[in-house]
């Protein structure tokens, strides 16, 4: 029986050198198993968190080995949402790839679209009109705000403050309404396309953004009152899951998680792509690398993103919103390109290799959620189960982005 089990389990494993994690000991052999003569002895027991669990933000499975309430080790088991996007992308024309990226980081779809569009444009040397670039910056930063708001709500819910959850959604809803106004869709936009954007912005959209920017500072103050200053919240997050800058760099952590460790690394400042060198904004950074600092970094980033949106909206030039004449099937010259951008969750990279045909030869996405999740076993070790949930929440994973 056991031999059979091992056999079928080994079939499931993608790599043989990774030890199997499916082998959970028979039931009721956990917790404390009798009192040995000398002293109390605590036996570890395995607990599955997910794939169906309220706090794994999708279908992530964590195999947690616990000693009482303390997490001894935690192993993320991925792949429940794997949809072979890289392979699919290799079998589509360059313009057809864009809508698939919506389904990867579905909370930052605009940024995901943009990476692919920028990669194709660089590969095929397509010049994008300035108005289109402005619109891209506006929607991408709005999406960053939406993503961070959503994260704030989800994180608050992970900590147990359910009201924060709904508040986060309230303002995100306004942004979704704006996106619905310009592209008709509320989650999977496909708005930023190769050669520009799908539709021009409407005056109503600009009005909506203006209204939103007016109320946002008050609302963010509300969140700080509700969440940031709360004693229980600080107790639950300060110092929890702290990682050092060295660890973060060696694990290739990017985005707000890295900036919470003290390094204000942001591709919008370090390698200004698109129009970011034109705008005046700061990169917030804190130094403890714990959940609390990750929270503060993201909250500050909301305000910085709002600043960028304000400037981009004021400087929005007239002109075309997309390249007028673009071939139906783009055939870029042979070569490869790697584009990296600052998505809400960190560095989002797109590698594309062209063989001169209408389809890319090889596509690879470097998604921030996946790399950031890799530090979870390190960050969660030795913390309590409640902290594990908080740390997982603070990583800000999107399972579509992790599994692709």
């Amino acid at each position, binding site marked *: 029986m056991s031999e059979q089990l091992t056999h079928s389990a080994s079939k499931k494993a993608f790599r043989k050198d990774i030890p199997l994690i499916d082998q959970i000991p028979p039931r009721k052999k956990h917790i*404390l*198993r009798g009192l040995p003569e000398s*002293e109390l002895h605590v036996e570890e027991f395995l607990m599955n968190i997910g794939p169906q669990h309220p706090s794994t933000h999708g279908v992530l499975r964590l195999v947690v080995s616990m000693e009482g309430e303390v997490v001894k080790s935690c192993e993320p088991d991925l792949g429940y949402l794997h949809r072979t996007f890289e392979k699919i992308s290799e079998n589509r024309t360059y313009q057809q790839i864009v809508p698939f990226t919506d389904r990867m980081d579905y909370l930052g779809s605009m940024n995901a679209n943009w990476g692919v569009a920028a990669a194709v444009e660089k590969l095929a040397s397509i010049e994008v009109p300035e108005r289109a670039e402005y619109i891209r910056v506006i929607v991408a930063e709005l999406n960053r705000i939406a993503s961070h708001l959503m994260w704030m709500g989800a994180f608050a819910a992970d900590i147990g403050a359910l009201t924060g959850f709904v508040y986060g959604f309230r303002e995100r809803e306004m942004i979704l309404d704006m996106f619905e106004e310009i592209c008709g869709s509320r989650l999977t936009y496909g708005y930023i396309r190769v050669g520009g954007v799908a539709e021009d912005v409407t005056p109503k959209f600009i009005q909506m953004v203006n209204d939103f920017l007016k109320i946002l500072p008050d609302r963010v103050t509300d969140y700080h009152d509700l969440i940031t200053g709360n004693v229980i919240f600080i107790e639950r997050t300060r110092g929890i899951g702290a990682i050092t800058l060295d660890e973060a760099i060696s694990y290739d952590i990017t985005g707000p998680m890295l900036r919470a460790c003290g390094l204000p690394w942001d591709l919008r400042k370090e390698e200004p792509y698109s129009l970011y060198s034109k705008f005046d904004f700061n990169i917030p950074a804190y130094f403890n690398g714990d959940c609390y600092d990750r929270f503060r970094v993201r909250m500050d980033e909301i305000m910085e993103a709002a600043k960028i949106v304000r400037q981009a909206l004021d400087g929005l030039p007239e002109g075309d919103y997309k390249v007028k004449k673009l071939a139906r099937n783009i055939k870029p010259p042979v070569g490869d390109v790697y584009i990296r951008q600052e998505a809400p969750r960190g560095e989002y990279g797109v590698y594309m290799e062209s063989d001169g045909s209408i389809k890319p030869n090889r596509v690879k996405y470097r998604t921030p959620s996946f790399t950031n999740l890799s530090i979870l076993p390190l960050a969660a070790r030795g913390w309590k189960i409640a902290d594990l949930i908080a740390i997982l929440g603070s990583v800000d994973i999107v399972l579509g982005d992790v599994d692709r």
Partner: protein
Amino acid sequence: METVMSYFMLNPAFYIFAGLAVILAIFMITMPNPVYSAIFLVLTFFCISVIYITLEAEFIAAIQVLVYTGAIMVLFLFVIMLLNLGRDADLVEHSGPMKYISIIVAFAILIQIGLAAKVTVNIGEKGMFPIEKIREIGNTEAIAGLLFSDYLYPFEIASILLLLGMIGAIIISKKRSE
């Protein structure tokens, strides 16, 4: 038979719950599963507290539930669950002759108690605090008065013992975590 009935009519609630307590106690010791044993012990405690109520010692009844079921039995269950003894029937003992000896001793004690009880019941002597007096001064006050006057030293010694136990437990658990 008639005398039994007359005893019963004297205080039916007492006999019902006393009988129930005995039956539940038997269940408690015969259950192979320690979790069930704990449940029956809890029920036994409830019956005993009802007996206290029939004696109009309501305070003791409440304390019985508060301390024995609410605190001590919770810890029992806690330990049983922690040691994972439930359902595994690890506790079944196979101790041949000891079994019969203990049965004999148990019956001897039962007979002794029965004889002693018979004597006391027949004499029917009233103690220092009959029901009439309790009704007058209230049973909480009566207990408090006794505890803090006549039995002050035993009371304090008991609390010091408990404190010692507590400190000992803390030291043991500290040692483990180090």
